């Protein structure tokens, strides 16, 4: 979402007519070639729909790839760092994938639709890499990006809103589970996943049913204060809950221009996604070496004093610059000023204290603010309702 605007024609998502109708302030951005709202009416109110009621986000531009065939599991195990064999049918797993140098190319979710049938959702366009990875495997890879429309339905009343729409017993769906419902003569898939760190779901239908889904959902959620939200509100929510974003918090490895700018999963705080016990996966040799020799950087979540977001700040230890901030936001629910930083090793241990050197401009006048900050242990916002099954009713 932090992409530079390019003078290219943007596509419309299957929800465009409804999204445009709701986009009161007409603030649009370019998300992977699609025109999507940065904000609908008020970023803060949109954000609070995620945390207090139900927020709806048009997820359709997300890249979706179907991976099918006898070797699908082996294929994904070679491509991704995680042990894919542990993802059961009708379950979803978050993972990253690396190049041979052990540098993260992208992150995404893998949906296991059947025994040898998976769907991969990625931030980056990935079809060429997925096809290169397919050499030697009996798999077929299909780009389904345009074949599926999707809405993220997030927030404490999201389960109730969706149940009201007709998704019976949705509250029994476990986090990272998925389920199929009949919807208008077609199949609707719902997964308990999201990018907000709250109770929430993602709903997947054919593009033809997109507008119907939107209308029915907003009707059903009316009593539960359902609201659409744009990418700015999502950004606050994901920072509050500790989710990194490709292209913002790391440079996708195969897009890197300057040597050394890519990051390994260890350097992004994602070592829990790396299964070095697997005999082979892209980047394994390099990651084994990194594990033995040590990483160059450490991902840290910083709690910054004050309420000025530490965007693009330097992180200082005394006079020495030891890192930079990649994402930052004032997080309203946690009432904290949070920043993600890349710190040079060995800095960044939990509890370490540094100073964020924040620069900001007021009427052409640049101001420097030195805000003390502290490395915290995990995300600041992590409510019980996110994991609770059955989901708490409202």
């Amino acid at each position, binding site marked *: 979402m932090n992409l530079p605007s390019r003078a290219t024609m943007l596509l419309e998502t299957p929800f465009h007519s409804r999204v445009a109708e709701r986009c009161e302030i007409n603030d649009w951005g370019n998300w992977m070639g699609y025109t999507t709202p940065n904000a609908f009416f008020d970023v803060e109110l949109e954000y609070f729909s995620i945390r207090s009621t139900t927020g709806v986000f048009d997820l359709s531009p997300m890249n979706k790839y179907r991976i099918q065939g006898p070797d699908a599991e*082996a294929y994904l195990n*070679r491509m991704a760092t995680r042990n894919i064999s542990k993802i059961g049918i009708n379950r979803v797993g978050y993972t990253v994938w690396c190049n041979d140098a052990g540098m993260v190319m992208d992150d995404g979710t893998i949906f296991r639709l059947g025994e040898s049938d998976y769907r991969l959702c990625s931030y980056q366009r990935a079809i060429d*890499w997925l096809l*290169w990875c397919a*050499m*030697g*495997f009996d798999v077929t890879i299909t780009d389904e990006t345009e074949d599926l429309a999707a809405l993220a339905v997030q927030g404490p009343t999201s389960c109730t809103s969706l149940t009201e729409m007709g998704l019976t017993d949705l509250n029994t769906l476990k986090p990272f589970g998925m389920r199929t419902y009949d919807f208008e003569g077609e199949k609707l898939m719902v997964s308990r996943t999201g990018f907000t760190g709250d109770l929430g779901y993602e709903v997947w239908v054919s593009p033809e049913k997109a507008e119907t889904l939107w209308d029915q959902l907003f009707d059903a959620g009316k009593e539960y204060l359902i609201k659409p939200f744009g990418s700015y509100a999502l950004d606050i929510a994901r920072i509050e809950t500790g989710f990194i974003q490709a292209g913002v918090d790391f440079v996708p490895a195969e897009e890197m221009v300057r040597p050394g700018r890519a990051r390994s999963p260890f350097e992004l705080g994602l070592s829990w996604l790396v299964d070095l016990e697997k*005999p*082979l996966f892209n980047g394994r040799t390099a990651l084994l070496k990194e594990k033995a020799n040590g990483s160059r950087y450490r991902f840290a979540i910083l709690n910054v004093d004050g309420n000025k977001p530490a965007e693009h700040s330097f992180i200082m230890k005394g006079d020495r610059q030891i890192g930079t901030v990649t994402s930052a936001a004032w997080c309203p629910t946690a009432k904290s000023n949070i920043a993600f930083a890349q710190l040079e090793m060995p800095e960044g241990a939990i509890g370490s204290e540094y100073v964020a050197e924040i620069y900001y401009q007021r009427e052409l006048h640049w101001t420097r603010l030195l805000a003390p900050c502290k490395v915290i242990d995990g995300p600041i916002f992590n409510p019980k309702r996110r994991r609770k099954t059955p989901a708490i009713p409202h």
Partner: protein
Amino acid sequence: MRKYAKLMKTAYDTRPPKLVEHDLHDKMTFAKLGLGMKLLGKDDMSDLMRLILINIFDVMKETFQSPKLQAALALDAVIGTPMGPRSPNTVFTYLHRFMGEVLGFEGATQVKGGMGTLGVALSNAATDLGAVVRYDTSVASIDKTHDRVTGVTLTSGEQLTAKLIVSSADPKTTFKSLLGYQHMETGLARRIEQIRFKSGTVKVHLALSGLPTFTGLDPSALGQRLVIAPSLNALESAFNPLKYDESSERPVMDISIPTIHDPSLAPNGQHVLSAIVQYAPLNPKGGWEALRAPFMTAVIAELTRYAPDIASLITAQELLTPADLADTFGMTGGNWHHGELTMDQVLMTRPATGISQYQTGIDGLYLCGAGSHPGGGLMGLAGKNSAQEIIRQGELA
């Protein structure tokens, strides 16, 4: 050209240096190359920089006046390649062909008893040193666990265990067919897959009841290389169809009659003519079954223009297409260099970046064939350099 080829020998004689992460040995190679460049002198050095990326057509045009001489020399630059005289890289391939002279072979050279005896001689030498050579045996797969090779499985199903495997098969055969892309990381598989293996070369063998008469050629010269390449434009015209997977209407060729030097190759008084013919594709439109007879006819027709009696002397004929060469000798694409010999596929990028020093990124597996630096051409240098590298690695290998 000879000076440049001598300089190239400096790099050919050892493993290709790494650009980054180079050790002392690599630094020495760079130093020798640098010194060699310096010793060329300013004019020759800048001329090499100019020449190396242009094409043999331009070099011939600026150097010689005789169209026949231009074409005869230019044929050396394109033989065994899918390139025409105007293609970039052809000065480099010309220098590569020159290597034979630098290494001390001048004029027509052939192996006594035929090329097969070279293999037999090497095999005998290995056996004398205690090696066991198994004939009529094909490897079905190279086996590995995690990052290390463990042995090979033969097509018979028999498994042989080994700590060290050295493959003289071309890199694509080694990595794709024997190891399997699914058993390595994607980046490596991609780099192997991207290696260019095109060919435009056909081999023709004719059994002749007697020596043919080439118009205007003294019979005493029949033991030399005979070249049919009337002009640079004739070469380029012969090349043009290859771009569209079609074959030359008027092929060009490099002919030898080995029975003149080694009569044992044919029954008494009879002869064998061997020709390297350019250009025909690996997969012609319509397939080789449809093209085989017409292309052979075109070759004989072209020979007949120069040796009018040749058709009446033919007792047997054989046409080895790029597809035949690929199938019979396991050379991907029928390319006799085990990967095109072009500026992007030499030194530290041969066979591919990251696997240039005969190592493969997979412990215990080494390459030693023409697909590795410095390429093919019966020099044996890839094998020698590879062996030295394995010895240098010692226990690590």
